[in-house]
């Protein structure tokens, strides 16, 4: 009897803990997807969108670069002023020291990513190093491991935010990223535009493949209204601009995380060529 009571009591305590764990927000954290970049079709606007999604996703930049004061809040601060100031800072002795202009800023951002300790923004260094060592990880090394194209995309994004015409080179065909074995056989990366649109259920809201859905605006002839970059933006960050007569927050906000870059390009190519 005592035994039963004790066991029942202990199990009840356990169940309370378990229940609590189950009512909290449930988030599963997947390993970052290996992006497959179809380099031929990426223009500068596409690079900027890609950069933004890398900045907020795989690059883990927003883990630190946010409003919490751990690192300069790159999404909020006035980059147009900040970057030229950094180049003029007498403490700055890096590759772009003494230069100015967009190209120098590109070099500065690049250096910030691949050699963070080359220049440490005052007050943000590792504790006790007197701002000589940066806590920021080297972005082209593990665990983040962005490749050269991805780094350029992030630079383009930041340059764009600083109001500068991006100076990074567009990826050329030779740069095609050889996808990691592990992800290439990932079962669910769509390989045709139709599959990709099916996979993300666009036709449920937009009139595609004759679905006549009208939750979202018709996309026929969208290529005439939108540039490639704007279109990418409309898919990845729907709330940035809202189509007239429609409401925000209806279109899913997480395509940037769900889509591989190849899927995005497939869909964009397809939509651009949709006849009116």
């Amino acid at each position: 009897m005592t035994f039963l009571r004790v066991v029942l009591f202990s199990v009840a305590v356990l169940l309370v803990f378990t229940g609590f764990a189950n009512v909290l927000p449930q988030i599963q954290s997947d390993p970052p997807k290996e992006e497959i970049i179809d380099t031929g079709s990426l223009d500068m606007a596409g690079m900027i969108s890609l950069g933004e999604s890398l900045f907020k996703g795989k690059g883990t930049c927003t883990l630190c670069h946010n409003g919490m004061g751990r690192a300069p809040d790159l999404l909020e601060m006035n980059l147009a002023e900040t970057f030229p100031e950094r180049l003029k800072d007498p403490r700055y002795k890096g590759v772009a020291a003494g230069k100015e202009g967009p190209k120098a800023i590109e070099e500065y951002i690049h250096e910030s990513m691949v050699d963070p300790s080359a220049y440490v923004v005052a007050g943000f260094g590792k504790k006790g190093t007197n701002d000589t060592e940066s806590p920021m990880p080297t972005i082209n090394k593990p665990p983040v491991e962005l490749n050269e194209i991805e780094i350029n995309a992030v630079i383009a994004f930041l340059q764009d935010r600083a109001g500068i015409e991006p100076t990074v080179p567009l990826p050329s065909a030779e740069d095609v990223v050889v996808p990691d074995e592990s992800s290439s056989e990932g079962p669910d990366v769509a390989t045709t535009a139709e599959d990709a649109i099916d996979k993300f259920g666009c036709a449920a809201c937009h009139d595609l493949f004759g679905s006549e859905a009208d939750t979202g605006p018709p996309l026929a002839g969208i290529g005439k209204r939108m540039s490639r970059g704007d279109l990418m933006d409309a898919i990845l960050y729907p709330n940035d601009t809202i189509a007239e007569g429609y409401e925000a927050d209806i279109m899913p906000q997480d395509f940037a995380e769900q889509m591989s870059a190849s899927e995005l390009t497939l869909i964009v190519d397809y939509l651009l060529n949709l006849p009116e």
Partner: protein
Amino acid sequence: MKKQTLHVSLGLLAVLLLVLIPQYGFAAGDEVAAVLEGAPKPSRLDYPMIWGISGRTVVWSMAQMHLFLAAFVLSVPLFSLATEFMGTVTGDDRFDNMAHEFMKISMAAYSLTALVGGGLTLSLFLFYPQMMGYMLKVFRGQVLVYAALFGFESITLYIYYYSWDALRRGNRKWFHMSIGLTLNTIGLTLMFIANAWATFMMSPAGVDPATGAVTGTIWEVTRNPLWNPLNLHRFLANIAYGGAIVGGYAAYMFLAEKDPVKKAHYDWMGYTSNFIAILGFLPLPFAGYWLMAEIYAYSQQMGITAMGGILAWLFIIQAVLIGTIMMAANYYLWSGLMRTDRGAHYARYVKYIAVVIVGGFLVWVTPHTLLLTSQEIQQLGGTHHKLLGPLGIMPAKNTAVNLMLVFTFMSFQMFYRSSRIPTVSWAKAGNMFIVALYVIGCINIVGAGLYGYITPTVYKVGASVPQVVTTLTIIIGSVIIDVFRLRGSKPETVHWGRMSERSQYALFVLPVAFTWLMGLMGYIRSSLRTHWHVYTIMKDNSAEAYIPTIGQAGNTITAITLGFMAIMVFVFWLSRLGATRQDETEAPS
């Protein structure tokens, strides 16, 4: 007397040798250090698929179960030895009997630990052969040292246990305690070695960062940045854990026994184990703080992933568990006031303490943002700043924790005071001095919390240090004053066994909550590596490289805990079985 010194020095010599052997163990095989091949890069197909079983869950369960058992069997000899020592110093046989009983309980668990450890190794090699191959390459001969030590551990354990009665009195006792010391040294060494494997996977050292090729000695690999913080953390946690489990055992025996003498014995045992558990538990937050600080120092990114990323919610559950543990421990201490006649005098303060503890608990578990819509979560993707919210009110939480610790200590202080009547002339004044310490100390804790609240982030973190120092000052300060105050005090009879049945359930909450908490922390620790087997060195490309949701993790942990509880029931039953037979054979004579 001479003989005794001889025995002691022989024992110490044995310990010294054992301390040195691991040193060589760590260094073994350095000549072949140049293993220039890098870490393997397995593709998804390199992970064996075995009947569709989730390899990760198997390994997870095995590892966690092994850890539970190992923590238990490592900690019991530790405080068994301490209790034995107490018995020798005080000449009170109760201690010695209890130490012996402690050991009896852990004996049956010992072989099960080894068994599950074998199962863990097997499942690791089955499901993660490439990873294990790499680990073997990195740690080389150390695995053999581990195996050898394990053998020694078994031998010493058996000698220690079975020679108990033979080496019970006089000089021989010292010899016996030397064996116990040896046993504990080996046990801790075993744990430290295993810790090195776990921390290497989190903060690898001694390998080439680009390729993972082994460049350092075994010692360099072992002494990676997180090794020592984890050693300390696990050492303390083991003590608390072992105490909690034995406390549960004593509570059960207390409830099951009818004989008042035996009831008294188990009440006393429950009290002592609970004391040990709390003793190990109180410094744990500080050890945890050190571990977290080292994680930040090693990789800020890993630190933020832990505290601000999706794992932030886990610390809310952790808060709930620790709060549960504190409330249970306090409840038990308050019930204990019934054991003395003076206790009633203190019992009237209990309600105020209860208010602080429960209030602190509530502050602690209130998450900063309860409303997290699925859309917010989706926006998070890689950005976690919304979840950093809880840190925003970190000062409030720190204040709550420190006040809870202070008042838990106060409960304990009331209990030990209730059994002694001070005789020194300045007893009342001394008490007032302590009251002043509490009052000012609490004001200081709250004040530092407020200060942290209104100041920028760096200050928030900075202001938590004075709070911790204040808590420690209150505890240490009042113990010191009380030691003098209670000099030559008249002992009051403690009626062991005069305890409510309900109070014993508090002693069951402790092991259950501890077990689950340890499981949870294991999940957090492993998740910090995200999708890496060896952080930044060897990627996990298996299908199960993701971090499961809290709910999934909670369910798994509960399942493992239930398994562990079943094993413990079996172990206790075994140790009872032995006792039962003995009584029957004794009866006819």
